[in-house]
């Protein structure tokens, strides 16, 4: 409701300022009313989730451009509009009628809801595969028999591929062969207009034929200053993620992610920015229940992340899996996959990212245009009293060095006598050749 009140108030002020700008007799008042209008539009930008543009609007439009206007008005002394001599009497009426027609035509079209018919298109879903099956060979990944990733070994992750929305049969083949070891159908939906979501296919399980599971990844902005963490448990036992505190001091240990069953994923939790101590422990035996960590034992730790650095504005998926060692025993490792989240809508960061990637060429062109305009403004305001004189100065015979005194007086001073008698009180220097002298005014 407050948005409506703000919109109406600001809109009324903006329109009033525009009308007053048109009606003011004094040009300075017009400029000031236009500034007010620009400030109102900046507020509307804020209402429309465009804080960066609102700032640019205030700085560039209401600041720089309007100061330039006021400066020129002052420079020209054009505050009072000259008596408006109208060449065409019928012009005002015609303009008013045309303006009303324009307003009605567009207004009716907008009022009839013609601009909302189309739905925004979503971005294509992003899909990748992580190999977390310790006993399986390196794999090639095919989606509906189209190769999307090659030679993904254990612990590796394929690059994101962008697929049209739909259902795909994701199949894993032993790398370089046609021997399928796992296949499962998955349905990928289009995400929002921005790439806010992705899917990660986890291949896990014991034996040579892994099981496939799909994990949803969320790249929307993290509100807190931290990282959104999900844990996928690809081991054979239920685990918990705890913050062990200072050297497993039992008093300040706490649970970060509660029990994750094998083959499932946890709900997202937010890890705060900075250095974190994390440890995965088995849930068996109920070592940690409801924050009671009195039975916590260092020896139980499956995998410990010491001094784990968490960056803000990231989303991470931690895949916990077994790893075979040379002596046929296995241990648990965590494979963290960290991705940047989307910058907030309309923020300088996200606009900068877009400007320097997708819109780099327009950005360069506009920069060039600004440079040309700067040079053009300087050239245009050069004061040429006489164009021919200016041209003469550039490429005429005057490129010779100007002599401050006539040659004759130089000769005279050398000789110590008047030779021939001349006047030397002219401030403008005559040309060095005496034949030109009679032509000068």
């Amino acid at each position, binding site marked *: 409701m407050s*948005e*409506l009140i703000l*919109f109406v108030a600001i*809109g009324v002020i903006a*329109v009033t300022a525009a*009308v007053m*700008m*048109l009606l003011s007799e004094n*040009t300075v008042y*017009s400029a000031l009313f*236009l500034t007010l*209008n620009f400030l109102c*539009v900046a507020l509307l*930008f804020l*209402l*429309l*989730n*465009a804080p960066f*543009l609102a700032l*640019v*609007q205030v700085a560039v439009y209401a600041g*720089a*451009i309007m100061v*330039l*206007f006021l400066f*020129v*008005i002052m420079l*020209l002394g*054009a505050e009072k*509009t*000259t008596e408006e*001599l109208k060449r065409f009497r019928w012009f005002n009426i015609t303009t008013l009628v045309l*303006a009303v027609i324009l307003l009605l035509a*567009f*207004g009716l079209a*907008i*009022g009839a809801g013609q*601009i*909302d018919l189309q739905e*925004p298109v979503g971005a294509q879903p992003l899909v990748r595969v992580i190999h977390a099956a310790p006993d399986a060979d390196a794999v090639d990944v095919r989606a509906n028999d189209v190769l999307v990733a090659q030679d993904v070994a254990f612990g590796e992750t394929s690059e994101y591929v962008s697929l049209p929305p739909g259902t795909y049969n994701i199949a894993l083949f032993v790398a370089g062969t046609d021997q399928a070891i796992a296949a499962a159908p998955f349905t990928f939906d289009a995400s*929002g*207009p921005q790439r806010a979501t992705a899917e990660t296919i986890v291949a896990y399980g014991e034996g040579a034929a892994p099981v496939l599971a799909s994990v949803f990844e969320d790249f929307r902005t993290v509100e807190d200053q931290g990282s959104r963490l999900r844990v996928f448990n690809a081991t054979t036992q239920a685990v918990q993620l705890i913050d062990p505190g200072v050297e497993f001091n039992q008093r300040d240990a706490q649970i970060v992610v509660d029990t994750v069953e094998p083959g499932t994923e946890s709900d997202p939790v937010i890890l705060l920015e900075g250095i974190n101590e994390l440890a995965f422990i088995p849930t068996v035996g109920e070592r940690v229940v409801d924050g009671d960590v009195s039975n916590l034992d260092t020896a139980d730790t499956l995998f410990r992340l010491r001094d784990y650095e968490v960056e803000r504005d990231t989303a991470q998926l931690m895949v916990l899996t077994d790893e075979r060692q040379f002596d046929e025993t296995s241990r648990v490792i965590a494979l963290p996959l960290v991705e940047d989240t989307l910058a907030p*809508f309309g923020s300088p960061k996200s*606009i900068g990212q*877009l*400007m320097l990637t997708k*819109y780099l060429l*327009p*950005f360069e062109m*506009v*920069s060039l*245009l*600004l440079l040309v*305009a*700067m040079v*053009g*403004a*300087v050239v*245009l*305001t050069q004061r040429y009293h006489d164009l021919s004189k200016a041209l003469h100065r550039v490429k005429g015979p005057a490129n010779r060095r100007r002599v401050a005194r006539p040659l004759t007086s130089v000769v005279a001073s050398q000789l110590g006598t008047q030779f021939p008698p001349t006047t030397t009180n002219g401030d403008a220097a005559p040309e060095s050749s005496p034949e030109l002298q009679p032509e000068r005014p």
Partner: protein
Amino acid sequence: MIVQNEAYVMLSLVLFVLGTMGVLLRRNAIIVFMSVELMLNSANLALVAFSRQWGTESGHLFVFFVITVAAAEVAVGLALLVAIFRTRKSINIDELHQMEG
């Protein structure tokens, strides 16, 4: 969003028409210039509104470019006005018709 995009586009339309009328009705070249700025600005408002509707930031980028182009245009335009005022001692656009041939 409580306020529909139509409202923003309507407001932008009203400002645009006001700018058009300023260009057509006023004879003072500086005010004509300011009216052009008003029209550009109203177009910016519509772009930002559409940008919110579609959930992409391309509209914001376009507004950014429009603001840049407007700054360049004002720099050159006002320089022209100053030059014209020096020679003609007037910025009434009815008197500036030496380009008619």
